[in-house]
């Protein structure tokens, strides 16, 4: 088996490992707790985590380019706040949705512009974005605002029935659609492939004539859009706007990506991964909920352990790849040494 397989299959391994993990955890839950093994409990995973799936998917693109977006959690809170305030002021619900999505795109694009134009580290730029977004939400209002808008209430309570019983929310549908679109973008568009190329080797990508700057800006723009979309989904889920919503959620999104097999070093990963990552964290949370006596913080502890296991697993794949490369370079070295430029040749 050659290396490619190890890398691609390596990624398959992550996807497989995550899927197996979800099944095992779900199986454990089903045997231990009555009522756990039901379609609705499973569908609730999507309903409760729709916003996180959306945000993590946007984050995945950023991570594949080798970057990071820390502003997403604060941005979801800001979007909830802006939506709640505008709705309170009597704006049309659809106008609010379009407006917030637009803000997301512009904000993300601005961060991407700073990162690519001034060659800044994404960590610091998006950290600034995070403070800015979080601060702005409190500037708008320090209190939690409850949303009473009819359209939002309708969207919030709408139940989309699923064949075989059970239902999902509008948010879950949006999340699933986004994941499908993301998979398509990653595999079948030039932008998607450029994302992988930039994450694989920036200087090569530049020399190959790929639009590195544009790709970087677009990727943060996409992440910004996903934050805004996640913000909308979260807002109709909570029906409130509050500056303290989702503190530290950007870390959950990053964790979901890592558990879903997106390598933080960039260049590798499947877009189905973040969703699987979110689901596995969701199952753990559900188990702890069913268990009843454990504090919900145990979710964090479990996710912490999970992350340790997954990063070590990823590291092993990378080390394996390095070792193979070393073998290749050795192979190359044993070859007859190429003619060197000696005095003798000069004399002839």
């Amino acid at each position: 088996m050659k290396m490619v397989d190890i890398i691609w299959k390596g990624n398959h391994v992550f996807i497989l490992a995550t899927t197996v993990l979800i099944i095992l955890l779900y199986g454990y839950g089903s045997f231990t707790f009555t009522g756990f093994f039901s379609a609705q409990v499973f569908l609730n995973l999507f309903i409760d985590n729709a916003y996180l799936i959306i945000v993590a998917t946007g984050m995945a693109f950023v991570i594949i380019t080798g970057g990071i977006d820390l502003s997403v959690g604060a941005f979801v809170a800001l979007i909830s706040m802006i939506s709640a305030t505008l709705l309170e002021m009597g704006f049309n619900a659809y106008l609010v949705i379009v407006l917030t999505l637009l803000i997301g795109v512009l904000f993300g694009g601005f961060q991407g512009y700073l990162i690519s134009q001034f060659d800044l580290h994404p960590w610091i730029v998006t950290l600034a974005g995070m403070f800015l977004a979080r601060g702005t939400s409190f500037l708008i209002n320090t209190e939690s605002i409850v949303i009473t808008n009819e359209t939002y209430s309708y969207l919030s309570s709408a139940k989309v029935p699923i064949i075989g019983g059970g239902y999902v929310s509008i948010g879950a549908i949006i999340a699933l659609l986004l994941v499908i679109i993301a998979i398509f973008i990653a595999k079948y568009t030039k932008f998607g492939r450029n994302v992988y190329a930039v994450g694989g080797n920036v200087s090569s990508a530049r020399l190959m004539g790929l639009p590195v700057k544009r790709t970087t800006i677009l990727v943060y723009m996409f992440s910004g859009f996903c934050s805004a979309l996640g913000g909308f989904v979260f807002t109709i889920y909570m029906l409130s706007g509050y500056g303290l919503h989702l503190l530290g959620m950007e870390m959950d999104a990053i964790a979901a990506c890592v558990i879903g097999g997106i390598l933080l070093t960039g260049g590798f990963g499947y877009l189905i991964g973040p969703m699987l990552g979110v689901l596995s964290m969701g199952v753990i949370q559900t188990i702890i909920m069913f268990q009843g006596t454990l504090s919900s913080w145990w979710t964090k502890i479990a996710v912490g352990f999970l992350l340790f296991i997954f990063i070590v697993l990823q590291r092993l794949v990378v080390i394996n790849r390095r070792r193979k490369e070393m073998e290749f370079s050795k192979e190359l070295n044993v070859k007859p040494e190429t003619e060197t430029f000696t005095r003798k040749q000069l004399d002839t």
Partner: protein
Amino acid sequence: MVSEYLLRSEGISKFFPGVKALSNVSFTLKQGEIHSIMGENGAGKSTLIKVFTGVHKMDEGSIFFKEEQIDLDSPQSAQNKGISAVFQEVNLCENLSVAENIFIGREPKKNGRINWKEIKKRAEQLLLTRLNIKIDVSKVLSSYSTAIQQMIAIARAVDMSSGVLILDEPTSSLDKNEVKQLFKVMKSLKEEGMGIIFVSHFLEQVYEISDRITVLRNGQYIGDYVTNQLPRKDLVSNMIGREWDENSNHKEKQFKNLKSSELLLSGTNLARKGSINPLNIEMRKGEVLGLAGLLGSGRTELAKVIFGIDKPDQGVLYLNNEKIGSLNPKSSIERGVSFCPEDRKVEGIINDLTIRENIILGLQTKKGLLKYIPMKEQERIANKYIKLLRIKTPSIEQSIDNLSGGNQQKVILARWLATNPTLLILDEPTRGIDVGSKQEIRQLIFDLAKEGITILFISAELEETVACCDRVIVLRDRQKIGELQGEDMTESKIMDMIAKGDEIDETIPS
């Protein structure tokens, strides 16, 4: 007459901080010709190529493509004009598949989505028909050797180019057959009317393939010659800017009588599992001892054991008649042993530091990290060695990144010389640097030995080993198989020794 040029440039200048990388360089490329650019390291070849490919923007001058003035400000703009290039190091994405590497940025589409089947089919076809390589193109690039990766980069460039193809040192990682294959491709492209710019260190190859040669020196345009009217010696003297001194290192080698000289180092039964088998080694003061052998024969490994990077499993080492208990690099440096490692990029230079800082580093380690060396003193030392080794730099505060390979090597050498070593280990000190600098470094070895410094010299080039050393230890398969000195020390005898008893003699460069 005017339209015969595919690419024509006039008065190109490019400045880097403190360095004039190119000054007023002209270059012309005709349709259907292979044009080599020759020059020593630091002559400006790579910079010129980077100007043509839009990586660097030139500061002065103009470029005409098919007699139409063009403005190259990014790799994309050069590619759009049909100028494509393969750079020295493979510049593809290792995480993508072979097929994708060839077609990324210009993927064929079907119904608005990338047509992967088509990409795979076309990549396979391209590699097979153009380069005669049959590989699985859906595997990721990193599953193939550097040589194959280089061929893939060439395939991409060939396929994208519509007129001008630039190959910067494409052959350095290829073996002879692969070079042959590449030249076949170049010739057929040439017949199709393409103009090819070829950069290589290998004179043989340049003479074999190119129609014309442009020589650069120190960023200056020296001349443009028809290959078969330019004798090699003239080419070399044009490149290094002085008459090639025929006998520079064949001048009567005086075989020093070192038997009388004091014993500096002696090791008995030195061995380390997996790197060298037990052997004895002796070095006298002022001696230049060579280690000869093929790659993997234990040359570098022995040096590492002596310096203490790798600890020996058995055996004893005496230095100045003093038994050395525990070997490690720091104590070796304190004892006056210096090691100038093989790969200066990885083990030697520290890119972000200035020349002064790089030179002082060894001395600082020797003195102890907390003992401050006064700035005046640092400057004095740095200046001394810059002058002594003739390091070409505008100032001692220049970042070492801005120097050419040969000059970087000299900085490393200066670092160890500054520690006043009694034993200097030089592992491949001349690898990858140009003829002129090689000559200078060899001269320096002579001079140092004359001053009484003992040198352990390792080189893959036998000719160089013979020229520099007083005595040679021959190694094969991690074993010392013999020692030669005086009149006996010739290239052919060493080769005989290495080759004796097995069939690997064809791997020895002759």
